């Protein structure tokens, strides 16, 4: 049977690895290519790169990172952040990434999902969703709202509606990030994850809040996630991916144990 995937997420700015808490106060913690290789050797099942480079003239630095990563690791990886059109997608895919993730750009111009799926196949297109809990209202019947610009801007879009819409438009996977849980290391937003995962037919990667291996066990069972994104807990070397996988294995959660 299929294994649950453990996916470290590397935030990259100007070609260097960073990890921020609630999107503020990012600190430089290393070379993304070196760190990607280290995680590959620890048994990461996939790697997510999120480019938070602010200025567009430095975008090509990321393409170079993607190229070097593709020469170094032989597992799938995706790139998100700053993907605005088909041309951005093509650059990243040609440099060697399997998948591109679209977030704000898809909210502003949903057609980018269907265009991307037509050009590169659904399996290439990950819909990244940043979500905040807002309470049930007429506008947000699920109680969760899509936010963009790193969580600063509310869109008025219901998160559950948007997940289904993304699937209809051709996204092959959803990376679901809870802004409330992100950076807290207090555990994933289980209700949100289960709600989305139960209502779409494509795989869901849970993101935001991982601090201990138990959190991953919870989101992969109660949260019904197909994969779990992790960051600080491995970036700060509190745990290795191997340790996390061994813990999940003890909990009878199937992950890939041989690599």
């Amino acid at each position: 049977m299929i294994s649950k995937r453990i996916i470290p997420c590397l935030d990259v700015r100007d070609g260097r690895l960073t990890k921020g808490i609630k999107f503020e106060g990012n600190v430089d913690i290393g070379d993304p290519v070196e760190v990607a290789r280290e995680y590959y050797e620890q048994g990461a099942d996939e790697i997510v790169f999120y480019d938070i480079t602010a200025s567009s003239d430095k975008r090509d630095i990321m393409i170079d990172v993607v190229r070097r990563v593709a020469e170094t690791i032989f597992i799938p990886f995706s790139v998100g952040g700053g993907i605005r059109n088909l041309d951005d997608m093509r650059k990243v895919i040609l440099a060697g990434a399997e998948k591109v993730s679209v977030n704000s750009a898809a909210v502003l111009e949903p057609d980018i999902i269907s265009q991307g799926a037509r050009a590169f196949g659904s399996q290439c297109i990950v819909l990244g969703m940043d979500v905040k809990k807002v309470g049930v209202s007429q506008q947000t019947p699920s109680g969760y709202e899509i936010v963009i610009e790193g969580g600063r801007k509310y869109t008025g879009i219901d998160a559950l509606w948007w997940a289904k819409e993304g699937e209809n438009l051709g996204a092959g996977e959803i990376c679901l990030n809870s802004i409330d849980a992100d950076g807290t290391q207090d555990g994933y937003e289980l209700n949100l994850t289960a709600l989305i995962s139960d209502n779409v037919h494509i795989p869901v990667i849970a993101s935001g809040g991982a601090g201990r291996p138990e959190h991953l066990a919870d989101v992969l069972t109660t949260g019904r996630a197909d994969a779990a994104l992790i960051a600080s807990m491995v970036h700060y070397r509190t745990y290795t991916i191997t340790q996390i996988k061994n813990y999940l294995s003890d909990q009878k959660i199937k992950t890939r144990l041989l690599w």
Partner: protein
Amino acid sequence: MIAIIDYNAGNITSVARALQNIRQNFVITDDTQKLDAASHVIFPGVGAAGEAMAYLRQKKLDVWLKSWINTGKPLMGICLGTQIILDYSEENNTECIGLVAGSTKRFPEHLSSAGLPLKIPHMGWNSVTLKRTHPVFAGIEPESEYYFVHSYYPSPSDQASVLGTTDYGMSFCSVLAVKNLIAMQFHPEKSGRPGLQILKNFCAWRGND
């Protein structure tokens, strides 16, 4: 020299990088003369069957593949490159190359495992149960897992051509092997160490069982 068939289908760079890593010389080409000169051919692919077949026909690569298979030299299919060597694919209702009898089918809706519904595409790491040994799988631990991403699966009509199966709420053929052909649904170039070993074994294979 290894040749990778260039037919505008996605993951060619990934296959090339994996071959670089295992120090194999290769060409990426759609020129049938260059392909003829190769010792081994890799037929990769990501994308949809309809478009891929249209492109292959336009370049006459479908005909070329049939002639290559008769030379007895090794051919490896990967993902879409595996699906379209069968006669027919349900994806875009497409007539395919027909190197192996059978068809490519869509996973049925409502697959489940342990009471929980399974997602389509089948995306992620899964294992392969081999029905017999094969030189291309030599030295690989049976518990190894490989990276899959697909909504359709190969279904050859002759069970003898099934080398390996994978479980995803149902058992499907994940590796086909007939004489000098080996074809897999997963991506060896994205399957870490065991995947690289498969590519290495393929490059050393002479095309016999």
